[in-house]
C-alpha cells in the first residue's frame, strides 16, 4: 500500500512532478553528453599522441627512466616479448631503440634523437609514411635514414645527401656511421621536426653496437579502456623471478606526465561544470521534496495518529523522492542514450582552423564520443546521491515532527 500511496502522491501535483523529473533528465542528458564528449576527446588525444611519441605502454629497462642511457636496454628476443604477445588485449608490439647522437653534414652539426624502428610495424601504427614530404619511406633492410624537415633545413640536406651520426654506443663503444637520406618527413610538432632521425632497427642496433637489444617495447591495446587491465597483466607477467627488478612497465601517463596533467585539469573543469549543473537542478529537486513534505504535515499527523510508525512515514517520503529521481533518470537515459550512441558512431566533424590544426597534427578532425557503461552508471549514481542529499532536511523535519503541531495545522505552526 505504501508503494501505491507514494506513486499516487507523486501525481497530486502532476506539473510539479513532471517539471522536476524533466529538470533531472535534462541535467543527466547534458552532463552525459558533455562527459562522453570529454572522455571521447581524451581517449582520442591519448591514442593520437601515443602513436607519434610514447605509445600507450612501454616496457623499459628499470634504470632507463632515470638514465635515458644506451646502457639500460631490454632483450629484443621473441622469448622476452612472448608473455605480452599472449595477452588478448594487446593489439600490437613495436620494438624501438632510442638514443642521442651528434648529426653532422658539411660544416654544420646538431644534437639529434635517433629512433631505430621496424618501419612496416611503425607505419601500420602511426601511418608515418604519409608524413614523408620528400623521397621515400624506409624499409627494414635499408641502410638509409629518414630525417625531420626542420633538421634537414638546418643541416641543408636533401634526399640522397649523406649525414654523419656520431655518439656513444653500448658499453662505451663509439657509435659512428655515414648514412644516406632516403626521405624527409614533416612532423607538426617542431621539437620532433628539428630533432628526429628514423632508421631501421637493425641499422640502429649496428650503429650503437647493442646487438639484439632495444630501449623500449611499445605496446598498444585494442581498447583504451583495457589499458589499466593490460598494464596490471604486464606488470604481473614481467615480475617473475627472472625478470624481477629488470623491467619497468610504464603507461602513457607516466611517459608523458605533462599531457596527463593537462587532461586531469581539463577533466576537473568538466566535472566541476557537471556538478554545478546538478547543483542548480538539485535546488529544484530539494524544493519539490521539501514542499511535498511541508504541505502535508497535517496529513502526516493524521497518518501517525491512525497508526503509521515514523519509520514508515520516512520510507514513504524516500519512496516518493526515489520515484521522481527514477523518472528523471529513465527519461534522461531514454533521451541521452540514443544521442550518445549516435554521436559515437557519427562523431561531430570539426571545420575551419581547428580542423586544419588537427589535420596538421595528423589527427582526424572530429569530436568523438566515448560509449562506456561507467559514464552512464556515474550519472545514475550522481542523481541518486543528489536525491539523498535533498532528502536529508525533509527527513529530519519528519523525524522531528510533533504530532500535535502537525494535527493543528502543519509546518507553519512550528
Amino acid at each position, binding site marked *: 500500500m505504501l508503494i501505491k500511496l507514494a506513486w*499516487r502522491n507523486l501525481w497530486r501535483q502532476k506539473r510539479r512532478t513532471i517539471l522536476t523529473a524533466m529538470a533531472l533528465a535534462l541535467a543527466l542528458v547534458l552532463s552525459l553528453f558533455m562527459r562522453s564528449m570529454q572522455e571521447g576527446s581524451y581517449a582520442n588525444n591519448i591514442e593520437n599522441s601515443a602513436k607519434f611519441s610514447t605509445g600507450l605502454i612501454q616496457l623499459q629497462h628499470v634504470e632507463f627512466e632515470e638514465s635515458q642511457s644506451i646502457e639500460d636496454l631490454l632483450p629484443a628476443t621473441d622469448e622476452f616479448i612472448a608473455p605480452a604477445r599472449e595477452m588478448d588485449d594487446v593489439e600490437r608490439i613495436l620494438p624501438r631503440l632510442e638514443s642521442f647522437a651528434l648529426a653532422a653534414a658539411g660544416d654544420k652539426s646538431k644534437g639529434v634523437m635517433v629512433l631505430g624502428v621496424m618501419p612496416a610495424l611503425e607505419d601500420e601504427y602511426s601511418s608515418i609514411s604519409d608524413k614523408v614530404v620528400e623521397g621515400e619511406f624506409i624499409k627494414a633492410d635499408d641502410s638509409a635514414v629518414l630525417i625531420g624537415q626542420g633538421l634537414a633545413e638546418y643541416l641543408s640536406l636533401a634526399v640522397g645527401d649523406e649525414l654523419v651520426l656520431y655518439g656513444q654506443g653500448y658499453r662505451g663503444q663509439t657509435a659512428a656511421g655515414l648514412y644516406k637520406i632516403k626521405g624527409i618527413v614533416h612532423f607538426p610538432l617542431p621539437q620532433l621536426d628539428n630533432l628526429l632521425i628514423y632508421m631501421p632497427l637493425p641499422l640502429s642496433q649496428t650503429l650503437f653496437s647493442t646487438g639484439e637489444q632495444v630501449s623500449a617495447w611499445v605496446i598498444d591495446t585494442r581498447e583504451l579502456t583495457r589499458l589499466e587491465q593490460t598494464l596490471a597483466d604486464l606488470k604481473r607477467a614481467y615480475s617473475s623471478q627472472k625478470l624481477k627488478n629488470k623491467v619497468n612497465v610504464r603507461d602513457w601517463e607516466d611517459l608523458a606526465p605533462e599531457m596527463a596533467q593537462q587532461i586531469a585539469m581539463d577533466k576537473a573543469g568538466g566535472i566541476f561544470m557537471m556538478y554545478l549543473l546538478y547543483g542548480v537542478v538539485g535546488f529544484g529537486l530539494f524544493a519539490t521534496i521539501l514542499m511535498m513534505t511541508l504541505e502535508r504535515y497535517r496529513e502526516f499527523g493524521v497518518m501517525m*495518529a491512525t*497508526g503509521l*510508525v515514523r519509520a514508515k512515514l520516512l520510507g514513504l517520503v524516500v519512496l516518493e523522492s526515489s520515484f521522481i529521481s527514477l523518472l528523471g533518470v529513465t527519461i534522461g537515459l531514454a533521451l541521452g542514450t540514443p544521442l550518445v550512441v549516435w554521436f559515437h558512431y557519427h562523431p561531430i566533424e570539426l571545420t575551419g582552423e581547428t580542423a586544419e590544426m588537427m589535420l596538421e597534427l595528423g589527427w582526424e578532425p572530429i569530436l568523438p564520443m566515448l560509449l562506456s557503461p561507467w559514464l552512464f552508471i556515474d550519472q545514475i549514481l550522481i542523481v541518486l546521491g543528489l536525491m539523498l542529499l535533498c532528502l536529508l532536511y525533509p527527513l529530519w523535519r519528519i523525524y522531528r515532527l510533533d504530532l500535535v503541531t502537525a*494535527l493543528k495545522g502543519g509546518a507553519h505552526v512550528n
Partner: protein
Amino acid sequence: MSIQTTQLRKTYNQDTDFPVHAVKQLDLSIEQGEFVAVMGPSGSGKTTLLNMIGGIDIPSAGTVIIDGIDICALKDKALIAFRRDNIGFIFQDYSLLPVLTALENVEFVMQLQGHSEKECRERAITLLDQVGLGEQLHKIPSKLSGGQQQRVAVARALAPSPRFVMADEPTANLDAKSTAELLDIMQQLNEKEGTTFIFSTHDPRVIKRARRVIVFEDGQLTEDRAQ
C-alpha cells in the same frame, strides 16, 4: 475497560511568563460503551483533553490510564501501536488520504495492524456498507460529499476494531441531514458493537444525542451529566 485520568494537566508555554493552562487538574472516568459529548466554547480545552486521552498529546502532569496501562509512560513506538489497536480518530475536516479510494482509506489503517489483504478488504467493505457507502467504494474523497467523506472517516476509525473513538467536532462541516445520518450510524455502532465514542463539540444536535455530557470551561470540568 475504562479511561481514567488523574490530576491531568496540560500547560502550554510552561516556562514563559505567560503559561496557558489548557486543562487543569482533571479527574475523569469514562467507561466502555459510553457515548460522551465533551462540550464547551472554543479554547476551553476540549481538543487538548481528547488528544491527551487519545495518546496524541503528552500531559504536563497527571496520568491517563486505559485498561490499566498508563499511556503517558509509553515510548513513541509503543504508543503508536497502542493508539493503532485501541483508539480510532475522526477529525473535523475528515482528513482522508486524498489519493486513496474510500475502500483503500479504510484498508490502509487495517494493513498497518498487519492484517492480510483479504481480511482488510472484507472488513473495509462491511464497514463501508454499514455506513451506507457500499456503492461508493472506489471513489476518491474529492468525488464524495462532505457527509460521505465523514462516513468514510467513521469506517476508517472503526476498521482496526478500536475500543474508543475520539471524534473532534465531527459534524462541524456537515449540514443537518448529514449530521443526523452520521449520528445515527455512530449511535448504532455504539449500541451494536459497544464502541465508546467521545466527541468534542459545541453542536447542540450532537449534545442532544449523547448519553453523557461533560461541560468544559477554561480547562476545567464544570458539569458532568447523564441524559
